[in-house]
């Protein structure tokens, strides 16, 4: 059974894109989104982040940051990350603004706040399709290393789900198995389209 997956984090830069890239490479049907109001990237200091609107192409960010302070953004891995991103898709997308992207079967979020936002958004949509959607949250810290780990875990999880005819009947076991194996907390919810 081929499911459609969505990877969602806050800025659609690091965690979701990492997972997106991984899943895509594995041939899964995947998209990625952010739920924040803006795309935020670390700046020269904590109080001066780089803020972009969703939809700003990764290429543009890449060029801008490289122009601003190539050293800094190379050192903190931002440039490499954006470079990776622009090879995956054009621009960061906001979950809430892309309801028209179609029906997903599984949504992976990487932060509880994001998870809540996704659920809230789903609940606010008109649910007329009577089509289930699985929303899962895997807590992943927003840094490169953790994102890499989180991406791998997300892939593993999605492959597990992919291996089942219907996740609705097996999701409890999948989640329990995952928690047991990786000792990471996994929360899920079910919503409808």
């Amino acid at each position, binding site marked *: *059974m081929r499911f459609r997956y969505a990877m969602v984090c806050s800025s659609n830069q690091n965690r979701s894109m990492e997972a997106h890239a991984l899943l895509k490479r594995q041939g899964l049907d995947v998209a990625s989104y952010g739920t924040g109001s803006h795309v935020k990237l670390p700046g020269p200091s904590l109080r001066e982040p780089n803020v972009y609107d969703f939809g700003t192409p990764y290429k543009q960010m890449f060029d801008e940051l490289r122009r601003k302070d190539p050293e800094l953004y190379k050192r903190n891995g931002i440039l490499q990350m954006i470079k990776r991103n622009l090879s995956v898709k054009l621009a960061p997308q906001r979950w809430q603004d892309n309801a028209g992207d179609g029906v997903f079967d599984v949504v992976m979020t990487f932060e509880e706040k994001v998870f809540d936002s996704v659920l809230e958004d789903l*609940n606010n949509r008109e*649910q007329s*399709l*009577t*089509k289930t959607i699985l929303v899962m949250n895997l807590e992943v810290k927003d840094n490169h290393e953790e994102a890499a780990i989180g991406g791998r875990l997300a892939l593993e999880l999605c492959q597990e789900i992919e291996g089942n005819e219907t996740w609705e009947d097996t999701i409890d076991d999948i989640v*329990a198995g995952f928690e047991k194996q990786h000792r990471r*907390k996994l*929360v899920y919810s079910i919503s409808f389209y």
Partner: protein
Amino acid sequence: MASYSRARLKDLANSAKSATELPPKLQRLRYMRRDLQKDDSVFPTELLPHLFDLLSDQFGAVRKFVAEILGEIGLKYVELIPEIVPLLIKSLEDETPAVARQVIACGADLFRSTLERVAVQGLHSSELNDLLESSWTWLIKFKDEICSVAFKQGNSGVKLCAMKFVEALILLYTPHEGIEADFNISILRGGHPVLKIGDLSIEASQKLGLLLDQLRHPAAKSLNSSTIIVLINSLSSVAKKRPAYCGRILPVLLSLDPLSFLKGVYAAATNLALKTVFLSCLKCTHPAAAPDRLTSALKEIEGGGQAAKAKDLFYKTNGSIQDKDSVEDTKVSVEENPLCASSDVAESNLSRKRSGSEYNIDLNGDASDGKRARITPSVSEESTDGLNGNDGVSLPRVASTSTGPSDSRGVSDSGPAQQLVGLFGTLVSQGEKAIGSLEILISSISADLLTDVVMANMHNIPPNCSSYADGTDELVMNMCIVGSDAQIKYPPSFVAGVLSLSTAFPPIAALINPHNEDEEVYSVHVDQQMFPAEDARTPPGLLATCDTSFPENEESNTVSPQNVHYIGNRESGIPGLESSAQHDGSGALVTNVLSSTNVEAASKNQNASFSGKLLVDVIPSMSVDKLEEFSPKAVGTVASASQFVLPKISAPVVDLSDEEKDSLQKLVFLRIVEAYKQISMSGGSQLRFSLLAHLGVEFPSELDPWKILQEHVLSDYLNHEGHELTVRVLYRLYGEAEAEQDFFSSTTAASAYESFLLTVAEALRDSFPPSDKSLSKLLGDSPHLPKSVLMLLESFCCPGSGEVEKDLQHGDRVTQGLSAVWSLILMRPGIRNDCLNIALQSAVHHLEEIRMKAIRLVANKLYSLSFITEQIEEFAKDRLFSVVSDDCDKMDLDLKSPPNKPQHSISGMSMETPSEATSSSTSVTEAQRCLSLYFALCTKVLRIFTILRLMTNLVFNIYKNASDPVKQAIHLQIPILVRTMGSSSELLKIIADPPSGSDNLLIQVLQTLTEGPTPSSELILTIRKLFDTRIKDVEILFPILPFLPRDDVLRIFPHMVNLPMEKFQVALSRVLQGSSQSGPVLSPSEALIAIHSIDPARDGIPLKQVTDACNTCFAQRQTFTQQVLAGVLNQLVQQIPLPMLFMRTVLQAIGAFPALSDFILEILSRLVSKQIWKYPKLWVGFLKCTQTTQPQSYKVLLQLPPLQLGNALTKIPALRAPLTAHASQPEIQSSLPRSTLAVLGLVPDSQGTQTSQVQANETQTSQEQQQQQASEPQQTSQSQQVSVPLSHSQVDHQEPSQVVASQSQSSPIGTVQSAMSQSQNSPIDTGRSEMSQSQNSPIDTGRSEMSQSQNSPIDTGRSEMSQSQNSPIDTGRSEMSESQSSPIGQSQSSPIGTGQSDMSQTPQVSDSSAPEPTSHTRTSDPQASSQTLRDDDEKIDDTATSENEVTEIEKSKESSEEEEEEEEEEE
């Protein structure tokens, strides 16, 4: 075009059917679907069979896709629905879940669209067309199928979708507010051919109920978490979209505790879903949303943060959305929430039993509450009617009052309560069937709401109740019967509930038992009786009700007939009061009642009638609680009692005189108090104590209720829970006093408080043993401790002397007081200072026992409390100082030889003379009284050495100025302190630098320190250093004497000798005893020799001291035995020159041990060979000795040269005759030389004898003169001698002073000398001239010795040269030079020193016998003493003289060139 497409579609269908692989099939179908969507024309019906075939395809994916296509077709071509739906229904059971899910999804779409069509069509016409109708019928069927899937047991993905479908169904079937694009069922009007809005709503409600049922506890257990999550989400979306259902949904969600049946991940997921739901529900403005409970539930889930956010959210949304509603309205809605929620709970619980009623109540709620009516548009009249029709239960009265809109407006002010009344009515009307529901309902209603309900019900009470007052007995019986009947079947609590209900709700009661009108009336009557009647009676006085019951007890003459009747009535009704009725007028009512067999009943009745009724008067607001507390039976009795009272109550108006009233009141109060004895026995007195206290406050103060209470409390403090009651009373009074209503009442209360507390406290003191804790507990618990109580406490801790004798247990009393004080200090910062003062005063109490206890408390417990440490320290210090200043004052006042005192203290630690001791004995204890606290503190701060050091220092400083008693006290105290300190470095610091004047204290400290094991080397070092540098008093060395090296002891020996004899004895014994480890420092003989080697002149020690020291030694015969003495003498006789006291010691030895005489004779003969006559002093002693030992000594005498023999005989004429007789023996005479015989007169040579006698005389006088002269240079030489060899630091210090001393000495003596002998200008010259004149001069010897001791070997050689070679001293000198290698040894055995002391001592030895030398000594003695005195003075004055100066002085003195050379050489 159309045909083409049809053909193509057919082809596609066929090819799809025929394809064997999945991908091409799907491909074809996709094409087909695309074509179908494009095509707007009529659907090719012939395609359907193909599709239907495909619906049973082998591939699930194909089936699913076909189902999807069919669904789309159905949406597009309604007319095909009757064909499609049956197949879809079949496909619901498809083995592939995805197909079934797809079918459900299609079903949802189809259902919605069809419903819309049906509804819309129904709007315009009264009939639907057949097609639509049949479609609708099919869809209803479809819907039912899906619903059955949704409510099937078990878990599956299909079920999730089905449940979602149900959710959609509910939403479709219920009207909603707002202008949403969605279909709204509210467009339906009455008269729709198919759809009835009421039916739809009922169905929706039913479905919702089914959904909810799944989540209820037993069912939920079998669900997996995804199902639960979906359920929760669905329900929440229903709740959000149809807020009217909040009230049903939320309680279920709130009561859902996933943790109880799910574990781990599932519970977490569920919790999360719940959280989301609650958060979203918080945004809901519907009153049933119950934000409070949501927040708390969220709190439980989240543990804080989120919930706070949630609350904010709630208020924000409420504030912003409810534009019309004021804040007040919001509040109202919040208040209503519990009601709605609980009623919903109750109702939903009931739902299984009465399916119809829930909906009814929902509607009721909606209709009656204006706000909710706005949210959920009120249903049309018609449908409501229909509803009522549907409802199987008819609610004649209640329903009509609450459903109708007009009615609801009428009762809108107390809406919820009114509804509840209605609900109760409905339930009660069902009789026993509804008992369970009723119970739940009652238990779920909050107390406040219940009150409201009761109040609301008051309106329903018929006004003319009093007319039912008759037939009362039956009523009671009925009540009992009802109660007992019920008790058989139901738990008592429920019976109570029903009873109270039936009393509270007359209409309900009527419904329960319509035929039993009496009961209803009765209960109404009770209600009226309870409130309005009593209110009416309050004005006459607090005890109005009592008035009616007691007058006959006191004054039976005033009883009115009505009262009698009333009593009679009571008698019949309340068995417990029988006795009181029987003993009318006896006055002993209370006791009689109590003593009656029916004690329990009586007390119960008293409870009921007094606390119930009387207190109802006092505190009307409490009556409800009070009544609630009682058991049903009690309620019954109260009720019945008042029921009897009512008809007669108007009558009793009795005029009482004031005294009568007073006594009545008093009696009442007494009776109440008496009743408390029973109460406390049966427990549950906590609440009632407060009442009693309150009663006391309200009671007229002139009747002194407190005294009665006190008596009650104290009569049996423990059993009457006296403590608790007292504390209650105190708090009540305190509150009264602090309330500051007006001056009078507050002061009255304050004084009442004080006297109450004091009385109780005193009583506790007197009645309980001191070990009892009640008192301190009371003091600890009282709200405030007035001065008088503190004084009481103080009298515990610091009793006067008179009290102490009186109270045998005063010790324990003190402990009790102190422990109370302690706990007060700990617990009550407010009076901490006062309490601390008590403790401190006690710590300086004049009785030691008390003082010690208090000190223990202060030092061990209080001192460690940081907040009072400083205070305690200050106090202790203050006391310490006060001792000193007091003493000074006293001394000034006494004017009693102030100069005498310091002398005393300097003179040592020997205590004062007995007389003084007695006179100051009181003040010693006084001083100790003040000091012991400080010392106790000192020992406590040991760990903080710096503080200790400061404190100890302070003690030392105080000591300096202290008077004797104080010093004594300090002496008594300090050992403890020192012992605890040990020889720590801090103490050593103090020792090393003691404040001046504290020598004695220091000694005491040292003594204490050395009491134990061997003192540390640091200590010894410190003491020695101290002795060397600052304190010359050798006494400080005493404690460490046994531990000093031998040489040091010998060095300080002269100082020891200089002490008073007792002290010397002590020192001597210490030295001889030594330490346990190292043994004696000196042997007895060494000690004796050391004494002998003291040179009084050189060491500045009066001769008397030395002789006394000798005497002391001789006194100790056990130590200084014959052998010791023999050894000592043997050693001494070898010394050159002989020690000054040598002959004296010999004489003493003979006296002490006559057996030694032979040995002594041998010594004497050795002395002869040593030319003893050259030492004039010793010579006298020698002669004395021979006299004592005659006749054995004749032989020795005869050995003397003739000249000396003659001299001896001249001196002791008594010897001449026996000696001559002895010598005249032929054999002896023959052995004697002629000259000797001539002296004896045995040979006639009278002239020679004469001359020799003269010569001898002359020699003696000249010798005596010379001796005087010589003493001076010898002095000089002595100083030099001391100064040169000693290389210690001590020497540096002593040397100049001594030299200066000798200088100042010498000059006056020099002048005297020059006056005496003109020819000799300088004493040294004299010495030298003498030397040249006669070699025998002893001074000469001294002189030469002196020069020899000046370290110049050449010089020695020279002086030896100048002396006659055959001088007997020669040998001695060679010995000397040998011993010079050790400086100390030299000073010890210095021949000069000995010689000199010999010279000055000799006359003393011969004191008794020779008158002439005595006179001489008399002249020389004062000189010597004056010298020593001056010595002392000079020491102090001119210690700073430099060595150069010394040299100069010496130069000026010594004129001879040789001497000058010597000096140079020395330098």
